[in-house]
């Protein structure tokens, strides 16, 4: 009863996801070796390969595009710094990048909650120029409100639950990929996913009451 109006989006998502399931969960070892030698070509290749994933993860969790861009940028900078110090990823590059993204997002919210001048999940409508976009402004605002509700609810569940929801629904990773990134088995991820959805439903309902 809450989400009947959003059913029409399914078709679009299905088209997008067609090319998504073939990702490899483990990074090529030669790619990591070149990364550790700070090879510009390897860095460019990694950036091209993972930028969109990291941005989607970040954008799903924060309220505005600029913050998501900053977080994505910070993830890659941390990657290079870690590699330079010899503490970067050794096997699972994507898992390392996404966990780092999750940590930076959590830090972002922690800083915001430490200075609660405004609701940290408030949507910054100014980040979308309503007069320049082709979309219907009403739809944009409806979507913004939906994001706000979800993000407020996400901040009320555990970090592991947040991560599984984000990986499954923002990044469209399979159950196996999600388990691989989180370093858990699939049964654990299934149970975690179930608990996360129950918690989210309760959080959303309490927010709307």
């Amino acid at each position: 009863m809450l989400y009947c109006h959003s059913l029409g989006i399914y078709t679009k998502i299905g088209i997008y996801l067609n090319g998504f399931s073939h990702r490899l969960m483990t990074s090529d070892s030669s790619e990591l070796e070149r990364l550790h030698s700070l090879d510009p070509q390897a860095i460019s290749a990694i950036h091209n390969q993972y930028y969109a994933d990291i941005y989607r993860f970040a954008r799903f969790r924060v309220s505005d595009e600029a913050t998501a861009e900053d977080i994505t940028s910070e993830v890659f900078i941390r990657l290079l710094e870690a590699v330079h110090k010899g503490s970067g990823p050794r096997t699972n590059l994507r898992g390392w990048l996404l966990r780092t993204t999750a940590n930076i997002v959590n830090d972002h919210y922690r800083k915001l909650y430490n200075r609660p001048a405004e609701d940290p999940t408030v949507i910054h409508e100014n980040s979308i120029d309503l007069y320049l976009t082709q979309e219907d402004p009403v739809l944009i605002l409806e979507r913004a409100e939906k994001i706000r509700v979800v993000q407020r609810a996400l901040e009320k569940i555990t970090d592991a639950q947040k991560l599984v929801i984000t990986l499954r629904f923002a990044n469209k990773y399979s159950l196996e990929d999600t388990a691989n990134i989180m370093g858990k088995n699939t049964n654990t991820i299934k149970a975690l996913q179930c608990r996360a959805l129950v918690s989210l439903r309760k959080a959303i309902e309490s927010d709307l009451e």
Partner: protein
Amino acid sequence: MKQKFVDILEQCIRLMITGVPLENCLKKFPDHASELNQLLKTAELMNSLQVEKIPLDAKAQNQMKLLALAESLSSGSKRGKNIFSIYWLDLPVRKVLQSMDFLRPLAGGLILALGIAGIFIIFSGSLLITSAKSLPGDSLYPVKRVVEDIKVYLAPSREVRNEYEHVYSEERVDEVFELMGLAREQKISFEGIISSMDGSNWTVNDIPVFIQPDTMIIVGIDGANVMVPGMYVEVDGNTSIQGRVYANEIHLREYQIIGIVEEISAETLKIWGIPINISPYTQIDPGIKVGDEATVLIRSEDDLLEALAILLEMHPELTIKTDYSSENTATQLKYSQTDYGDEQSLFGTLEIVSPDYWVVSGQKFYIISDTEISEEISIGDVIYVKYIIEPNGSFTAVEIEVGDDGGISREIDQQETLEHLEDQDDHDSSEDTESDGGVTDESEDHGEPEEAADPTDNQP
């Protein structure tokens, strides 16, 4: 059962992601439809928030930034591997910087504060340099005076403080000369010694000062110190285009008074009923107490009197200092105890006149209110002084009058002195030559004048 439900949920989510409507999923698992319905609607909402638009501009910028960082890190690594480099010097610096990581959140504020402080230091330095050349009336002149005051206040010793004050006093005089050279009319204040007083035209420190009818002239305590050439004064007034200073106020800056100490504490001295401040720099003779007669050197400030020195008034010994008796220092004269309060007399030449004492033939006679002084006495006159000897050996004049003795006063004095010496020797031959003081007795028989260049020659 639980495991089964999570499997069903996962299956439905997979179907939903591939585009199967929610209702179809629920129909496929009718036993769990009610449970699945709420969770799948939540999953549907999550799924609907798919981020489709990737900011390509931001991505390109981020990639360039990343490659620049990689280049920077790579070159840093190469430098660190060079054994001829000073990379080893970087290590302690890096450790220090890492230990200061906690300051990162404050880095912006710190940089801003340091920047402001730097600008302030540079600005204030140039401000001080510029203000040093300013003159009264210039916008930076107050800065110059404040800096001077601070330097005086922070002087490490009394000597340095006095030196600063002397330098800045000369600076004030130079400023007046500059203002007069520029024909600027400006309010000024300076200190100096009165070198001449010709009616309304005075000269103080070579600066011509015009005394106006309403000029306030403030002398010392109770008017005891009349303003005369040679005194140190402060002049407040205005420079003029005529090249002189029109005085608004002239007051004695430093002078001395003699009196009985009425009260004395660490902060204040009272003499003649007037409180005088004692500062840490005041020179005080040891042992001064209430009832002592003291000479106080006073510096007059705007609203208070500050004692520069408080000296025990040691009335001079009767050591005749004129040439005819200078040799007597070998056998200094001494008055007997019986001479206290007895009236003595003396002919001599008046050398110095001051409000407190007169000097006659080298001898100081203190003037009191009861001292009778005949009129028309001027310096150089031969006068006749009647005096008494105080217990402390000083002489207090009782009566002073013109004494035309035909130019024999010196000879009389000398003769009296010699006779007194003989009397002393006869009276007490065991008395040694050291004495606390002495006096020339008045003698009825002036005797014959004779030269006595050497006291040994005068012995019978």
